[in-house]
């Protein structure tokens, strides 16, 4: 059995062959560790292969064998760092990104997978369908969770590739429709291995650094299913789903709808269409404002005319009422006149009665009686002498006649002989 000796602890440098110290005899553990140190220098590799066997252990680890026509290799992975593992199945062509390593305990060689992506149209479709099913069951595509977009977004987060057609189309169409919008542009990689990661970082950035973003737009131009792979990953789907701001996707493909399209709040067919959907045409708003005003003016004018008509009507009614009153007053006056006339007559009658009474009273005046030859005699005390008993002999009496008085001395009084 060959004894393989090497110096431990020194990390091999450069492209030269591994230097070993033949004096040193490795233990198995040391050997495995030594090989791992060497393998670490290889760094990350990418390989394509078909899954020939797959095994999930304790819900934590993935053990897989991938092969091509001539060879096979073991693949190991930690499930928590492989979010897309659920789409994997035997027979599927995959791209594995990982580092070669030797399992310390058994010396078994494997690729420690950092990322596994479906490769080829067939695998991509299978993976896509599987992921769609899973996310749909979780409710990520529910219509009820789609949030409405503000009519006038003022702050937009744009997530797309720098200097891309998608970027230019979006900016151009948005400007044509509405001005005064603040756009925060987060450049991402829209395809390739780092793409999904960059999308997730963009969403994290906006959600962690802003509180008042009106919406986020994720867009890119068209491409093959493979090109658009990062828009069909679980990480992207979850980043869109978790966003506190509404998300609009404008991914330039018509044929297949990506998972990002299904999770987002509003799907646009292209980046230009995204700009059309989020920005209300300012001309529309201005014409709406103008038509609202002409409508309100018409209503107000109608109300004003109605009011004028009412006032006219009321004036006419008042006039009519006043005319009626005037008629009534006239009638009243004539009625009063009639009454007055009647009163006048009665007054006349009363006055004539008064004349009669006057004449009667006049006839009753004692002076008139005196005129007729009667007289009044007063005794010395000035009292009217109604009886001879009121007069004493040798007293002075006064006789009042119509035109004067007679003062006499009484010789004798004699009562009438009855």
């Amino acid at each position: 059995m060959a004894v393989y000796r090497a110096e431990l602890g020194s990390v091999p440098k450069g492209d030269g062959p591994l230097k070993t110290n033949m004096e040193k005899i490795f233990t198995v553990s040391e050997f495995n560790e030594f090989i791992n140190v060497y393998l670490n220098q290889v760094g990350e590799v990418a390989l394509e292969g078909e899954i020939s066997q797959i095994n999930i252990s304790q819900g934590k680890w993935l053990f897989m064998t991938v092969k091509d026509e001539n060879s096979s290799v073991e693949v190991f992975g930690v499930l928590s760092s492989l979010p897309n593992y659920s789409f994997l199945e035997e027979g599927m062509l995959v791209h594995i990104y990982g580092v070669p390593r030797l399992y310390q305990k058994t010396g078994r060689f494997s690729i420690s997978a950092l990322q596994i992506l479906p490769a080829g149209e067939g695998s991509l479709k299978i993976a896509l369908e599987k992921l769609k099913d899973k996310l749909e069951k979780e409710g990520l595509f529910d219509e009820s969770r789609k949030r409405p977009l503000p009519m006038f977004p003022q702050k937009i987060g744009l997530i797309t590739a720098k200097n891309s057609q998608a970027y230019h189309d979006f900016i151009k169409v948005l400007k044509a429709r509405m001005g005064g919008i603040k756009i925060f542009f987060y450049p991402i990689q829209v395809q390739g291995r780092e793409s999904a990661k960059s999308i997730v970082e963009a969403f994290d950035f906006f959600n962690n650094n802003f509180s008042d973003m009106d919406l986020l737009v994720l867009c890119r131009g068209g491409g093959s299913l493979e090109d658009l792979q990062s828009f069909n990953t679980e990480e992207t789907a979850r980043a869109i789903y978790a966003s506190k701001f509404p998300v609009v996707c404008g991914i330039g493909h018509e044929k297949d709808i990506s998972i990002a399209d299904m999770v987002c709040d509003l799907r646009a067919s292209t980046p230009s269409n995204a700009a059309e959907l989020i920005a209300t045409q300012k001309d529309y708003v201005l014409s709406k404002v103008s038509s609202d005003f002409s409508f309100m003016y018409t209503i107000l004018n109608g109300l004003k005319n109605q009011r004028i008509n009412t006032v006219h009507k009321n004036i006419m009614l008042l006039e009519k009422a006043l005319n009626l009153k005037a008629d009534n007053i006239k009638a009243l006056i004539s009625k009063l006149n009639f009454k007055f006339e009647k009163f006048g007559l009665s007054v006349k009658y009363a006055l004539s009665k008064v004349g009669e009474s006057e004449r009667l009273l006049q006839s009753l005046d004692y002076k008139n009686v005196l005129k007729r030859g009667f007289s009044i005699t007063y005794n010395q005390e000035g009292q009217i002498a109604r009886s001879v008993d009121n007069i004493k002999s040798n007293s002075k009496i006064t006789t009042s006649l119509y035109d004067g008085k007679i003062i006499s001395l009484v010789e004798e009084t004699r009562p009438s002989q009855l």
Partner: protein
Amino acid sequence: MTKDNELTLSKAFDELEKITAEFEGGDIDLEKGVPKFKRGLELAKFLKEKLSKIENEIEEIKSNFL
């Protein structure tokens, strides 16, 4: 009614729509209608001013991927 210093395009447009709807509802008289019309004019002025802006401002964020 929104205070003008907090007015946004959305608020102004919504308020104007609300006022128009009140007119459409027919449940409006001259006394209420005239002040509402005046308010509508203020809102329209605000909207026109805001919408007259032509440019959008773009700020690029330094991402880890470029």
